[in-house]
């Protein structure tokens, strides 16, 4: 299996989004300019976790067989294969935009999920929005390829609010990082 070139991830993340993405993405871009641009990857642990995610090829899990690509407010949306928490899409945000009143953490853990529309595995950054109280809408617990906490780079129980003003967990995003293979 080809290992992911993590050094290109930062560059990829700073690239403009393709034009075909929606109006909501335009809002997200604006949001990203208003807060500090997500510094990614920053920590050595993040390189390790991206490598992990690429290594554990997510073929044929129970989740991936039932996943859908239409509704980002449902727990079985394809990107949420490893999400644990409240979907930001149900809290006034989106899959890559925190609701007003919260801030995206620059750190996250990384999983990989299969998109049923193209059968490709993508790296997904499960990034927490921090600062407001727990949103309590659309609580999902998907654990595909989630690792124990002693392997934190792939663990969804850590509160990933390092680097923000607050450790108060509000909701979780599923930001598309790139192809896993």
């Amino acid at each position, binding site marked *: 299996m080809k290992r992911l070139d993590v050094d290109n991830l930062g560059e990829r993340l700073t690239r403009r989004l393709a034009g075909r993405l929606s109006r909501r993405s335009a809002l997200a871009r604006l949001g990203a300019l208003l807060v500090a641009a997500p510094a990614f990857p920053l920590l050595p642990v993040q390189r390790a976790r991206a490598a992990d995610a690429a290594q554990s090829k997510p073929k044929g899990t*129970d989740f991936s067989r039932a996943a859908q690509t239409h509704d980002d407010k449902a727990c079985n949306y394809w990107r949420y294969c490893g999400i644990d928490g409240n979907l930001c899409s149900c809290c006034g945000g989106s899959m890559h935009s925190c609701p007003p009143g919260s801030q995206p953490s620059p750190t996250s853990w990384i999983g990989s999920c299969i998109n049923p529309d193209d059968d490709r595995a993508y790296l997904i950054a499960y990034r927490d929005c921090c600062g407001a109280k727990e949103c309590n809408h659309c609580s999902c617990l998907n654990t595909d390829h989630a690792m124990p906490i002693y392997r934190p780079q792939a663990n969804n129980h850590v509160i990933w609010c390092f680097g923000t003003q607050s450790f108060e967990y509000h909701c979780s995003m599923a930001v598309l990082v790139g192809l896993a293979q």
Partner: protein
Amino acid sequence: MKRIAHEAAKAAASVGALLIAAALGATVWSTARAAGAAAPPVLQSETAGVTPFAGLTPHELTYSTMDGLTGGGIRIIDGDTAKLVASVYSSQYANFAWAPDHRTLYVSETYWTLGNRGTREDVLSIYGGPTLSNEGEITLPGRLISDPKTHTFALSSDGRYGYDYSFQPAPAVTVIDLHSRKVAASVEIPGCGLVFPFGERGFASLCADGSLAVADVDAQGKYTVRRTKRFFDVMHDPVMDESVADGRSGLAFFVTYDGWVHPVQLADTPRFEKAWSLEQAAGMSAATSRGGQITWRPGGQVPFAYQRSRHRLFALMHEGPPWSFEKPGSEIWVLDARSHRLLHRWDVPESAYLVAVTADAHPLLFALSQSWLWVMDPDSGAVLRATQILTPGLVRVRGE
């Protein structure tokens, strides 16, 4: 195989959610595969940001969650979609108010350095900017800590001053200059409580003997407090903490446990108008606290809302005995506050503890139970939409 059944239920639920999402114009992500076409393009990487907040819209409701277990927090729900729009952190027992720009949120709250112990800090926290983020705090000399009460915190109608009721246990009102972000004065109001701002810098408080305290300020910023006459009988039929007051016009409706509405034009010399009865407005006898009479009575947690433009008073009403002023309403009564006539009696789907009405030309009526928000048409009583909420404490809508 329970697992299979569970998955099927999830799939069905997601179809439902999809229909709702589509109906509300939510963005639907799909990389639909063109039949027989080339492989779909690889999805592009995304950046993470914060959804901008352009200000509270006329149909948005802001509510704080009830204290105790949920431990505070403020949430904004769009009445047009019944969806959560934004959330702001707060301590438990917080109060809050929007600046006239509808973008700046002030939160009156109390923290201890070690959760329930350590050093106490009473602050007015400021949220705003493009993403409703924290913009600092103003330290307060003290605050009342109690179950939610609307009139423990308010702004002057121009948004220049904040007024925070303090009880330590000596009662006082802290006046905060929101331009300089400093406490301007601490005004003692012995024997009185709560704060109802009027005019440019004045405020009134309700007093334990049935009178009002009226505070006015001179050019040097010095406050003088005077008492009015007693206008209600506090031992037998006190006016409720959760009466309504329109800060813009200075018109207050102080409503008693028995449903007597005392209209008062707040001013340096308040004008007391003749009291009228909610029950008489409905063609019934006036309620009384004597003899265990079972009749329709106002009650709940925030039982009244006032729509200035149409002079309409909304009241949560229930059938009950005396001293049942905290029982939730099975009906919302819509009253004309000028003619003292009952216009409508609307059923609510579940007994409601709080009521609110928007101030715009096409108003929405909100009824809140312990766990549901019902969005209603104030003119037809129709339930337009609903959403589950955390137990609500206080509500605020945009003033116009």
